[in-house]
């Protein structure tokens, strides 16, 4: 199974209580990984309100995840 680094920001950082963790997962896509983490940590945002980035680029929710990827889930943004 691939080992990924997940970085957390904003509401997800607070709900996870961490800025970053390494984990080994069978999740093949960001959506599946998010659902796994949401179930484990009680994230309040549903998957359809969170975007994903892999290695500092936006990716589709069903993009493939590979060993060593750095994954960030992006809650609804609110700059400005």
């Amino acid at each position: 199974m691939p080992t990924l680094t997940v970085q957390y920001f904003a509401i997800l950082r607070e709900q996870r209580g961490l800025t970053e963790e390494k984990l080994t997962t069978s999740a093949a896509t960001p959506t599946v990984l998010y659902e796994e983490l949401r179930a484990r940590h009680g994230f309040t945002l549903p998957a359809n309100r969170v975007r994903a980035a892999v290695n500092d680029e936006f990716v589709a929710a069903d993009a493939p995840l590979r060993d060593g990827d750095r994954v960030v889930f992006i809650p609804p943004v609110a700059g400005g």
Partner: protein
Amino acid sequence: MSFRLAATPLDPAALQRALADIRAGACVTFEGWVRNRNEGQPVLSLEYEAYAPLAEKEGARILAEARGKFALLGAVCVHRTGHLQLGELAVWVGVTAEHRGAAFDACRYLIDEAKARLPIWKKEHYASGATAWINCATRGDHAGATR
């Protein structure tokens, strides 16, 4: 053309001076300020958090788009991170162009796209002591719920 994040207070006069260009007949700037109220609730302060590597890339893309759409000479967008107090400058956009039409349009484009697309989050601290991540409420929450 540049986009950047800043962890310390912005100096709008210095930002505008850096845009000086004798070819420009127009300079339009926008300042986003921390205000004391949101959706009816008194706000005491704001925290901005950014996913910096992706915010910088997306900011550069937004500037490149503006350059393609409008006849710009220069453009700068700077967004604060960290804990800001009422009245502080949260975001500054400045655009120069030969003519005012392009400068107004590009400035509007830049701030609208920046707000919609940059991976930056805002947490409001309310007079009640509650806090909320803006746009992140889910069913059963209300603005100002402590989470």
